[in-house]
């Protein structure tokens, strides 16, 4: 078994659970519009740091859970999250060595792809976007990326997740 050689899987799992918790806390409307996409941020971190452990498959499953939590079309966020994981894995060697602000910009790009994909699907099933508010979560995620990165990196080093 490949899993036996890895360690600290519970840290990864716990970070996803916390991300899902943060994603479903009720917020007032103005804050909700800027709510970072926490599960996507956690997914980007882990598939960048440990691409051999967390990747497209894990992203897809996480997306299915988000779909169930939000009541959206089953497979919609799963597709978006698989895409995010794919983009991260294809570029993880470059992103790892970027300074934080440049990482945040890349994260914004990945999430923008995800958001455009999701709203494109919504448009197809009869919910075309009416204004530009659907882009604000991307900005929120970008602003929170450095903190997510630092916290998860320290956790990874402390618990020797590999």
């Amino acid at each position, binding site marked *: 078994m490949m899993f036996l050689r890895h360690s600290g899987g519970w840290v990864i799992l716990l970070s996803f659970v916390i991300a899902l918790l943060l994603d*479903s806390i009720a917020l007032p409307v103005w804050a909700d519009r800027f709510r970072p996409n926490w599960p996507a941020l956690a997914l980007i971190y882990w598939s960048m740091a440990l691409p051999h452990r967390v990747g497209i498959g894990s992203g897809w499953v996480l997306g299915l859970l988000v779909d169930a939590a939000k009541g*959206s079309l089953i497979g919609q966020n799963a597709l978006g999250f698989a895409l995010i994981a794919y983009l991260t894995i294809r570029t993880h060697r470059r992103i790892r060595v970027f300074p934080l602000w440049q990482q945040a910009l890349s994260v914004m790009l990945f999430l923008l792809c995800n958001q455009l994909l999701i709203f494109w699907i*919504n448009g197809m099933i009869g919910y075309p976007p009416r204004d530009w508010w659907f882009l604000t979560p991307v900005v929120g995620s970008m602003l929170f990326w450095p903190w997510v990165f630092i916290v998860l990196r320290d956790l990874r080093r402390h618990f020797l997740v590999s």
Partner: protein
Amino acid sequence: MAQIKSNENKPLFTFAVSANIRILVFALSSIALMTLDHRYHHLEALRNALSTLIYPLQYTVQIPFDISRRLYENLASHQEILAENKRLQQQQLFINAQLQKLTSLEAENRRLRALLDSSTALRERVLIAELITVDFDPYRHRIMINKGTYHGVNIGQPIIDQHGIVGQIIHANIFTSSAILITDPNHALPVQVNRNGLRTLAFGTGKFAELELPHVPNNEDIREGDILITSGLGGRFPRGYPVAQITRVKFDPGHPFARISARPTTQLDRIREVLLVVSEPLPEADSLAIGPYKQP
């Protein structure tokens, strides 16, 4: 990491190739799932399973809010509680007085309907539910509530709150269910003008404070300030609940239909607790008391 680097020497098993194949497989399966879910509604079982898996999380999220509310209740001053108690007592007195009249009217109504041999006599019971999440997409007006099939919720059940109609259930999971609000752009609701009984449909617009009535001809009698109630046609919503108030009527001679908007009587972006209406056939000889819904 060493194992991955050694893999990179073989062209067939490089990271990039396997990532390309994987994204293709997962993208295709997502598309298949979405098609099944949207076109054929075959995935209720999968949705149920996933929702049950995620329910402990949603439950955990609620805990701090419950605690803070309980703390507030405990810490609120004696004076405040007394004042609130007094206010609620007065309110109850008032409502009871109205209810007396309603009870006799309802009895009379039932007698008349029995004379006419009509079968529309239904009794409505309610079940209180709390909001868990709202859809993060600002154009889809969907909410998730903390009651499911375990509590007797089923698909199509109407949802109200103290001010009027809120929406209806579209997915019923075991412990949670999701509902579509009347302002969702894909929702239409059969309504009636309370003043003269004019029947029409109220469509959602994607804005929480607006409904549209696109099918009212120019020569109809409808005015600003008219109250819309559910007409009970279509069989989903019980008859006679307030829905919205007309805010704007514009008769444009160039168009066959008037342009009418209405504001829902409920503030749909502020709701935290909702009531699920359970319609059940009236038993033969039973009191008319409207009590809380009891689980069968």
